[in-house]
Structure formats: structure tokens, C-alpha cells
């Protein structure tokens, strides 16, 4: 899968796009937990985070499949 990180999340992980293998029965929450384990500074963002799978908003309980694009969205500031 491809993981997209935006804004401050990208700064912390030093990458806006990451390629990762998808374990069986993997949820968006699992993907996030793995990232937060790699970069603990991400952990604090979880309460305010949104997620998307294949460019559609998705709950953290959503399942992730091989070839999916998962995006983590910090609080938005458009306008």
C-alpha cells in the first residue's frame, strides 16, 4: 500500500509518501499504529486525525488491502 502523510505529519516522518506491505486483516488504525511506532511524535495527532482510503474518507476501522492508498489528514486549514 501507499501511505500519504500531509502537513505536520509529513514533516515528522520526513516523507509524504511511504510504501508498506499490508499484513492480513489490516485496518487503517493498524497502519497508523505502525507509523506511530516508527515516529512516536505522530502519536499526539491521533485524536484530531482523519483518514482516507483510495481518496475517500474512511473510518479507522476500515480494512486496508494490497494496492490501496491510505492518507492521514491532520486538522485542515483551507480557506
Amino acid at each position, binding site marked *: 500500500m501507499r501511505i500519504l502523510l500531509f502537513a505536520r505529519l509529513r514533516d515528522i516522518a520526513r516523507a509524504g509518501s511511504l510504501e508498506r506491505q499490508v499484513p492480513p486483516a489490516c485496518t487503517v488504525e493498524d497502519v497508523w499504529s505502525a507509523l506511530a511506532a516508527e515516529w512516536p511524535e505522530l502519536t499526539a495527532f491521533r485524536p484530531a486525525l482523519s483518514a482516507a482510503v483510495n481518496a475517500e474518507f474512511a473510518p479507522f476501522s476500515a480494512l486496508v488491502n494490497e494496492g490501496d492508498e491510505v492518507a492521514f489528514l491532520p486538522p485542515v*486549514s483551507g480557506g
Partner: protein
Amino acid sequence: MTPSLLGISADPLDLTSLVRLALDDAPPGRFGAIATFVGTVRDQNLGRQVSHLEYEAYEPLAAKALDAIGREVAREWPSVRLAVRHRIGRLDPGDASVVVVAASPHRAEAFQACRFAIERIKQVVPIWKREVFEGGQAWLEGATADPADAAARAVALARARGQLEEQAG
């Protein structure tokens, strides 16, 4: 191909062009009221002198989020034609970051739809701005984007109807 009424652009925004686009295929005089909003980069924020902003978007989702806002407007104000352009990239103080056009036969709906649209844009569209100011830089963080959040949509609607006390930001 006619450009979409709702979209993201890296080019400088132009209100007149967006109004023209919104009115493009309508018979002359169909819309008695054209309400518009232009958001521009302020030179001061939180006591800081702003050098410039950098806007970024998750573009495929941002396009869908704008379309969803278009559907919300159509549901609430069926007579309104909505056009939105949000800019991304580097913007300097005074530059327009977002333009909203709401055209309708009558002004009440046009004003309300225009206000609703900018409130929803700030709530649910995956766009972020990084402020570069004298002494540093910071990503600005607003709402956690959740288009299904009915309470947030209700706030946007109340603001559009002038039912909420005004607040900065």
C-alpha cells in the same frame, strides 16, 4: 472541455472569471443575485508578521470534498449555482486563496449559500496552510475533517443564516 465549477488551482485566482464561469450557460438575467466571497492572505496572524503562506492539498479528495459541498448547497438551496476555486502553492499577503460565487434568482439564497460554502470548505476540504512568519513557521490546524459530522454542518448552516455570534477565523 468546460472547467468544473468547483476546483483547486495553482494559478492566481480571478473573481471575474469565476463569476463568468458560473453564469456561462445560463440565460441572461436568470440569476438576479450573485453573492461572492474572496479569502485573502492576511499580513498579520496571532500577533505574527506573516511573510507568506504555503497551501497544499490532497487533491483527489479535495476535489471530491468540494463536489460534496456542491451537493449540500444544491440540497439546501436548489436555486443556487455554486462555483469555488481554492488556490494551492505559495501565496503572499493580499493574494486570494479562495473564491466562492453563489448565483441565484434572489439574494437571500445567494448570500446564505455563499457563506455556507466557505464555512464548509474550512471544515471538510483536505487543504492545509503553512505560515512562514518573522522568526519561524507553523502549520495552521483548524477542524478535524469529517464530512459526516452533522453537528459541524449545522454550525455552518447556522452561520450562513446569521444565527450564530460571529467569531474570528
